[in-house]
């Protein structure tokens, strides 16, 4: 097949990029080579629009063992243990084929983690769908949930937390972000950097088929009406093979055979071989006839671009081929020596004894395009003036009912009950809490993880929104008694070629950077997903933040369920009454404008650290951060989970009652303390200048607000628990 500018454009490359390829190669590439360039230079693999901005994120810290640039980030959790974790998007394929798209998203992220030698110990996910009224929403949700469950359950890795939202901006582009945490010994971490000459390059796992060809390119473009035709670009997952691959890899990793290992994810054999060679500053030579194929007559082009799942590329020590083969035979997996490392610094491919491609590795990697895209700065919207008459007409109970049963607040049990969240026998906080928590097997330690996003805030003001998501992740970890360590981010945006969308990206990243720097909560891994866009309509900017923290003594873990009658509930942090962009404003007042709540990083840090101190001293019986929906939603959830009531007396400040209960001011928590400890707790809070006030006293049943509004626990439960299962039935 002849290659020209049009072929390049058909491969998703721009004319300039094609010219650059010809210049760098000093010739026209052949079709296989063009395929390789298109796979390496697309947005998904090259980060060409985002690299410049991602560089600004704080990625270092005392606890960081490995930051971005490897298969996943690694943090130190003491005693020689480390946690490997990352979040990744699988948005485009999940819209086209929800079950397989979501399933392979989960499979891919688990592979990223065990490639580094870590056994996956927890999965999380952040999934976003269009309006519940949209005709596709129900099927997409069902398919995605089945896909996530189908893969994770079979692997035997618990899904311990997640987030689900509905917003019409996702009508044409749903988001599926999957996150995995793995546990590894600090001295047994594996990397993808190849080293040494003439080392055997081996292929293990599933056979290569024609599925997923151009998957990464498809994920680097907007959708149009022909999107259904792209089904063949979606990969098909086989969790059973991945389970075998996991066990076989960990068995091989226990020895000393492996020099480098890289999973074949986006852009398959192409990106895995090139990344290993590039990091090792080496060349790599592959005989494509040796690649195990499951279909006949596959061409070099297809073999290189297939995104068949459950495959790994390994550079072995010389002479270890037999040891390795024995292990993969035991697990019934394909094993083939397909090439070797060379000092040519080229990637060289052979097929039927003929050379079929030869490209200098540095051209593909270091010379890949990088764009400083134009972007538009956003302004902080003006505050709405909401009249007291409007608010005074509302009845608290009616509002609470509507807010608690809103699709973005209500219980997501229908979803997480379909995920095995207890396998491995170490899940000590299940989904539905502020963070999921798993014990580090056989120790007193536990790891907490949470995944968050606030697209509405990011849409209203990206800089504030970016900060807020990091702060919320931090609060969710604090609320279970975990010391926050680091984050991973999945940055879901529209087209970077549009100035508004690029502006949203740049400013969200800036906000994330500011918050993570201030909170000493560095970014250790992540991924960018652009082009979440159908024709001209993009999604609301949706950075998902996955936070990880450590609980040194798991018996000190905190949950949100109210524990004891007559205990007091305190509000930590100040309630200013910020209603703009709150769920209340959008659903009750139908007001979509205005600025998001301000994020005060000093208060976030100070309030969070003080609460950790109170938890450590044993004063906190339950805790919950106040986020979407505001104060009354937060305490309702604590009542529902603890099956207890509360008598609330609003403190006599000037804010309107409705604003007080439904505002979404940041930096706030609710904590339960024993009356006898109040004096000491107050002393610590005052000493640290933490704003606090009493919300109320825990009772046997009923929520009583200011002596005039009564809501029974059963009513609260019915508001909170029913929406999703009804919607799906």
């Amino acid at each position, binding site marked *: 097949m002849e290659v020209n500018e049009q072929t390049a454009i058909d491969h998703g490359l721009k004319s300039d990029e094609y010219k650059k390829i010809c210049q760098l190669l000093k010739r026209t590439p052949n079709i296989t080579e063009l395929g390789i360039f298109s796979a390496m230079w697309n947005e998904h693999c090259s980060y060409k629009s985002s690299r410049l901005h991602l560089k600004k994120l704080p990625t270092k810290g005392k606890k960081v063992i490995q930051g971005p640039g490897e298969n996943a980030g690694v943090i130190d959790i003491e005693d020689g243990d480390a946690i490997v974790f990352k979040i990744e998007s699988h948005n485009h394929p999940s819209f086209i084929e929800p079950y397989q798209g979501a399933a392979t998203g989960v499979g891919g992220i688990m592979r990223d983690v065990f490639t580094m030698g870590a056994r996956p110990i927890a999965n999380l996910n952040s999934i976003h769908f269009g309006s519940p009224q949209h005709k596709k929403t129900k099927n997409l949700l069902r398919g995605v949930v*089945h896909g996530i*469950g*189908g893969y994770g*359950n*079979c*692997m*035997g890795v618990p899904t311990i937390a997640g987030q689900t939202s509905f917003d019409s901006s996702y009508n044409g582009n749903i988001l599926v972000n999957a996150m995995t945490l793995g546990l590894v010994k600090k001295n047994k971490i594996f990397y993808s950097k190849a080293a040494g000459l003439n080392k055997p390059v081996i292929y293990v796992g599933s056979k290569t088929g024609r599925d997923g060809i151009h998957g990464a390119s498809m994920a680097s473009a907007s959708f149009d009406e022909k999107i259904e035709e792209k089904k063949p670009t979606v990969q098909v997952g*086989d*969790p*059973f*093979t991945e*389970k*075998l691959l996991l066990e076989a890899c960990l068995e091989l990793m226990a020895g000393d055979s492996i020099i480098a290992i890289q999973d074949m994810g986006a852009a398959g054999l192409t990106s895995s071989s090139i990344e290993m060679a590039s990091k090792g500053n080496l060349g790599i030579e592959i005989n494509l006839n040796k690649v195990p194929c499951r279909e006949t007559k596959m061409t070099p082009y297809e073999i290189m671009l297939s995104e068949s799942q459950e495959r790994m590329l390994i550079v072995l020590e010389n002479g270890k081929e037999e040891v390795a083969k024995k292990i993969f035979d035991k*697990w*019934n997996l394909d094993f083939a020596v397909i090439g070797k490392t060379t000092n040519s610094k080229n990637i060289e491919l052979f097929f039927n004894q003929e050379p079929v491609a030869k490209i200098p590795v540095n051209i593909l990697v270091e010379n890949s395009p990088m764009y400083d895209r134009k972007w538009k700065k956003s302004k902080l919207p003006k505050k709405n003036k909401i009249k007291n008459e409007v608010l005074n007409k509302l009845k608290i109970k009616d509002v609470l009912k509507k807010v608690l049963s809103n699709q973005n607040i209500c219980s997501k049990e229908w979803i*997480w*009950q*379909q*995920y*095995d*969240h*207890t*396998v*491995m*026998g*170490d*899940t*000590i906080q299940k989904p539905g809490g502020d963070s999921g928590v798993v*014990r580090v097997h056989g120790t007193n330690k536990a790891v907490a993880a949470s995944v968050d996003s606030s697209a509405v805030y990011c849409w209203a003001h990206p800089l504030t929104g970016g900060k807020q998501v990091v702060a919320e992740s931090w609060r969710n970890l604090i609320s279970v008694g975990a010391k926050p360590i680091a984050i991973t981010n999945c940055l879901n945006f529209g087209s970077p070629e549009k100035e508004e969308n690029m502006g949203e990206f740049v400013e969200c990243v800036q906000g994330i950077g500011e918050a993570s720097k201030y909170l000493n909560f560095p970014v250790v891994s992540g991924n960018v997903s652009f082009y979440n866009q159908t024709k001209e309509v993009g999604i609301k900017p949706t950075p998902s933040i996955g936070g990880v923290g450590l609980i040194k003594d*798991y*018996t000190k873990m905190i949950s949100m369920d109210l524990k004891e009658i007559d205990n007091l509930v305190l509000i930590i942090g100040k309630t200013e009454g910020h209603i703009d962009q709150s769920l209340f404003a959008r659903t009750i007042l139908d007001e979509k404008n205005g600025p998001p709540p301000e994020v005060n990083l000093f208060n976030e840090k100070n309030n969070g650290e003080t609460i950790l101190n109170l938890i450590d001293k044993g004063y906190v019986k339950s805790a919950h951060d106040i986020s979407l929906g505001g104060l009354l939603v937060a305490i309702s959830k604590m009542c529902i989970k603890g099956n207890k009531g509360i008598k609330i007396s609003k403190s006599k400040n000037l804010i309107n009652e409705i604003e007080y209960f439904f505002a979404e001011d940041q930096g706030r928590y609710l904590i339960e303390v024993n009356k006898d400890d109040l004096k000491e707790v107050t002393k610590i809070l005052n000493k640290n200048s933490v704003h606090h006030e009493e919300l109320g006293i825990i009772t046997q049943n009923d929520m009583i607000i200011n002596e005039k509004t009564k809501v029974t626990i059963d009513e609260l439960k019915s508001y909170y628990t029913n929406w999703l299962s009804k919607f799906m039935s």
Partner: protein
Amino acid sequence: MKSSVITFPGSNCDRDMDVALKKFGFTNKMVWHDDNELPNSDLVVLPGGFSYGDYLRCGSMASKSKIMRSVINFAKSGGLVMGICNGFQILVETGLVPGVLLRNKYLEFICKNVFVKLDNKENAYFKNLNKDILEFHIAHNEGNYFCTKDQLKEIKDNNQIAIYYCNKEGKIEDQYNPNGSIKNIAGIFNKEKNVLGMMPHPERMIDQSLSGEDGSIFFKNLINNIK
């Protein structure tokens, strides 16, 4: 007391079972599906998971694996064999216990705590238990137990029903049935009561930080009965 846990390709509750058995005093060995011989054991456990990916039919391929010949012989000679979840599905496929396990009624995987009522304490598994209702945990997609009318009569007549899904008070009603299984059946014995297959996972209920502690009660009692 010696126990063996069989690992099939795709088993994923084998480690959890190993941890539980050891915690309550068993000396446990992990046995590979491709081995011929069972080690000397007082109890053999087929753990949960997705053996062979649950392709073809859950438990079907595992039931034909090499080690299962020894397990079947061991069971036929009176040895204690317990199948949990996928292990139960494997037992059904071997014919050691009657019936089949269909897909859950609502076609969804279910992971949650359930209550089960013991029906028969005249066996090595539940003898001497001072509770009739246990809180266990389920996590499965195919736990909808089904058998023919004749089989049902036969297993009732022979007291082969081990546990029923129920509520906290022990009421066995449709609304407490998580997966649509016939008569709320959660676990059954073979005729001789030395083979037990059940969907719930007692190994996930073995300390207070987890879903509960009724698994501890079960295992403590089990090892005492075997001693």
